């Protein structure tokens, strides 16, 4: 309890520190997170954009490169083949020239193949089976003029393996370095190249075939030559295709790219897929087996293009260009994945870098959180200490103040608060001390008034006759009265006195209001009534006189309700006047109490010049009168219920024949029971008078 302010301040400091720390840290973390998200997004976008751009660029570049490559390889291949074409054209032309003008040339002899000439390029004569040199001496001699040409042509191109001529009469002249591999018998007219060229009448290319001596794939280009009678023979150039392999097959493009040449049938004659079987037959794949038909058609029709094709479920780029010497097409194929691989790798690089950055940022966030937790713990620790100091500083004087107030509250008005904090608390303590000084003055004043009121209560009590029985020598009546004020001094009063030796006067009165004003007014009223009664006036005259006197100078508008009654002791005649007071109870004879109701006059001191009517009732011996004030009938319980006239009547009738003082005490007890501890709001005043009889 004493420490609650202390704790409140401490809690407040703690909470505000934590909230501030939380806010700062959360803001920082939120910023980092936003930054992180933004970086991830940007980096992702950047990555994919860069990848897309570089992929496009790479694709374009690669396509162009592929096209260039295909074109370039085709051109190189073509140059070599064209050289052969030019060569065969020259040979055929010269041969035609020689055979058309035999008279211009002397016969020149040519040797049959001689193994000693192996490796040396020499012209060799061979004859078809059954043909004798003597029969074809003229032709052979004429052909001999072309020996030098054939040899020089053979040596002109390193890939030319053999240059030869064949004639219609079965003579063959060839120039090469293979003298050791030949016999003297050879019939050119049975060979495919001879027959094709003769049949076509122009330049032909044979199919690719495997060289009989195992030197690889070969091909022959042939062209007929003429004399004035028509075809005289056919010239041919046999060449190894090894150079094409160098140009084409050994062309590698990246990791997966490769090149090949197809002939006009789509057979991949120059390709690393070409094999030669045990019968020396060439086995090649056909492009139609794996390329789409439109691509195949375009390629075989001499198109130049680059296309995307699907081979075995994977995308490839194929670029092709035609050769011009032959109806062939050179193609370069490359996996599309590989084309875009650098793009993918740069995309992956960017994404990887982003990921790394994000990991870095996450680490920063973690670190920030760590710092935050550390800061929070530090803040907690710091603010706990700070809060303790702050609250101790604040709470200590407050606790002193509270304890001091407690001591003063317990009644020690001499206690001084001594707080020197130099702030509002000190001002408060000062004000408190001043207040206590004032309270001491007020209390002293109050104590003085209280003491005086005590005296006043005693005076008031002593003004009411209180010795019972009051007149021991009068046994004609018995009388008891009591007054219990609600506050120290009350406004009720009763009185009784002997007006003369045969007349007993009784008064029951209630001054409006309570406390000192009512008590003062009561003293005046009581004195006036008694004085007037003792001056020999009747009750009516007494009230009329007292009323007028009280009305003078009654600025406070006080008033009195009162009953004044004279008992004629010898006869029991009771003459009374009622000025606005509660009707008395009368017990007449052996019956119970009943109201002694008369039309009452106006209250005393209310209005000047009022007249009052007096009434008489003849009391029989043992008749009883009970006078009271409204403090009896209007006593209230906690529910604001009134004790009420009926309850008074009932209570009185339930307790007949008691001694008068006992009766009064009993009524008082019933009222207390009824009130159930509710504070007494009004003076409770009662007077009982029993007439015992006039016969002395």
């Amino acid at each position: 309890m004493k420490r609650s302010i202390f704790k409140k301040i401490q809690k407040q400091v703690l909470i505000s520190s934590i909230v501030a720390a939380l806010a700062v840290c959360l803001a920082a973390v939120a910023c980092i997170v936003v930054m992180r998200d933004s970086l991830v997004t940007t980096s992702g976008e950047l990555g994919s954009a860069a990848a897309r751009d570089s992929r496009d660029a790479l694709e374009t570049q690669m396509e162009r490169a592929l096209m260039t490559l295909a074109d370039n390889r085709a051109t190189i291949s073509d140059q070599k083949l064209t050289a052969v074409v030019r060569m065969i054209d020259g040979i055929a032309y010269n041969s035609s020239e020689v055979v058309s003008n035999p008279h211009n040339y002397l016969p020149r002899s040519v040797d049959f193949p001689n193994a000693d000439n192996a490796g040396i390029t020499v012209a060799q004569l061979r004859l078809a089976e059954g043909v004798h040199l003597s029969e074809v001496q003229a032709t052979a001699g004429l052909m001999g003029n072309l020996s030098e040409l054939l040899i020089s042509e053979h040596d002109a191109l390193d890939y030319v393996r053999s240059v030869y001529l064949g004639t219609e009469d079965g003579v063959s002249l060839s120039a090469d370095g293979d003298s050791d591999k030949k016999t003297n018998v050879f019939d050119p007219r049975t060979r495919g190249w001879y027959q094709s060229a003769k049949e076509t009448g122009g330049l032909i290319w044979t199919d690719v075939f495997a060289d009989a001596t195992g030197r690889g794939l070969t091909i022959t280009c042939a062209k007929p030559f003429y004399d004035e009678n028509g075809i005289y023979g056919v010239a041919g150039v046999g060449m190894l295709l090894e150079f094409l392999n160098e140009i084409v097959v050994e062309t590698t493009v990246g990791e997966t790219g490769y090149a090949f040449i197809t002939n006009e049938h789509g057979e991949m004659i120059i390709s690393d897929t070409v094999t030669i079987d045990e019968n020396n037959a060439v086995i090649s794949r056909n492009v139609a087996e794996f390329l789409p038909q439109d691509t195949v058609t375009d390629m075989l029709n001499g198109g130049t293009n680059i296309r995307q094709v699907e081979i075995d479920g994977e995308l490839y780029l194929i670029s092709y260009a035609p050769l011009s010497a032959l109806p062939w097409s050179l193609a370069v194929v490359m996996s599309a994945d590989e084309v875009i691989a650098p793009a993918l790798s740069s995309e992956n690089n960017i994404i990887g870098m982003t990921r790394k950055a994000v990991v870095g940022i996450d680490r920063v966030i973690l670190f920030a959180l760590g710092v935050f937790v550390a800061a929070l713990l530090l803040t907690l620790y710091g603010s706990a200490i700070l809060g303790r100091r702050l609250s101790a500083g604040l709470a200590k004087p407050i606790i002193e103040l509270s304890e001091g107030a407690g001591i003063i509250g317990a009644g020690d008005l001499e206690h001084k608060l001594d707080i020197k904090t130099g702030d509002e608390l000190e001002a408060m303590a000062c004000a408190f001390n001043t207040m206590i000084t004032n309270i001491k003055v007020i209390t002293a004043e109050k104590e003085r008034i209280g003491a005086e009121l005590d005296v006043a209560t005693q005076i008031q009590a002593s003004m009411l006759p209180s010795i019972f029985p009051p007149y021991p020598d009068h046994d004609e009546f018995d009388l008891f009265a009591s007054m219990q004020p609600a506050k120290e001094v009350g406004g009720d009063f009763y009185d009784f006195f002997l007006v003369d030796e045969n007349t007993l006067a009784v008064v029951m009165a209630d001054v409006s209001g309570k406390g000192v004003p009512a008590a003062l007014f009561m003293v005046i009223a009581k004195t006036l009534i008694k004085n007037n009664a003792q001056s020999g006036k009747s009750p009516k005259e007494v009230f009329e006189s007292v009323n007028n006197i009280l009305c003078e100078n009654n600025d406070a508008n006080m008033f009195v309700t009162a009953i004044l009654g004279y008992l004629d002791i010898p006869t029991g005649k009771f003459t009374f006047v009622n000025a606005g007071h509660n009707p008395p109870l009368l017990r007449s004879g052996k019956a119970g109490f009943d109201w002694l109701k008369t039309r009452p006059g106006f209250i005393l001191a209310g209005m000047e010049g009022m007249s009052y009517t007096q009434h008489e009732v003849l009391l029989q011996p043992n008749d009883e009168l009970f006078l009271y004030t409204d403090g009896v009938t209007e006593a209230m319980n906690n529910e604001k219920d009134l004790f009420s006239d009926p309850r008074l009547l009932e209570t009185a009738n339930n307790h007949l024949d008691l001694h008068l003082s006992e009766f009064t005490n009993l009524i008082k007890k019933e009222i207390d029971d009824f009130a159930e501890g509710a504070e007494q709001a009004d003076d409770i005043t009662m007077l009982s008078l029993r007439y015992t009889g006039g016969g002395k």
Partner: protein
Amino acid sequence: MTITQKAENGTLILTLEGRLDTATSPQLQDTLLPVFGENKDVVLDFSKLAYVSSAGLRVLLMGQKEAQGKGASMKLSNVSSDIMEVFEMTGFSDILSFA
């Protein structure tokens, strides 16, 4: 106690609600006495009044005197039988006017 004021056809009606006793009668005194300067006809509506003590009677008497002094009238309306009994017992029924 609650006092509500309402003007109706030149008559000021004060409706008293609750108990008119030592605690509440100063309130009525402060409200009632000044009204006679401006209002010639004042009616105190007692329909919601539960109780009148002697302190209440005093204020009613002061009101009555104030009204007479200013040449105005003060009338009581809807007085319950319990309260009327108090008026009769104290003789106030003779000096007060009832509407």
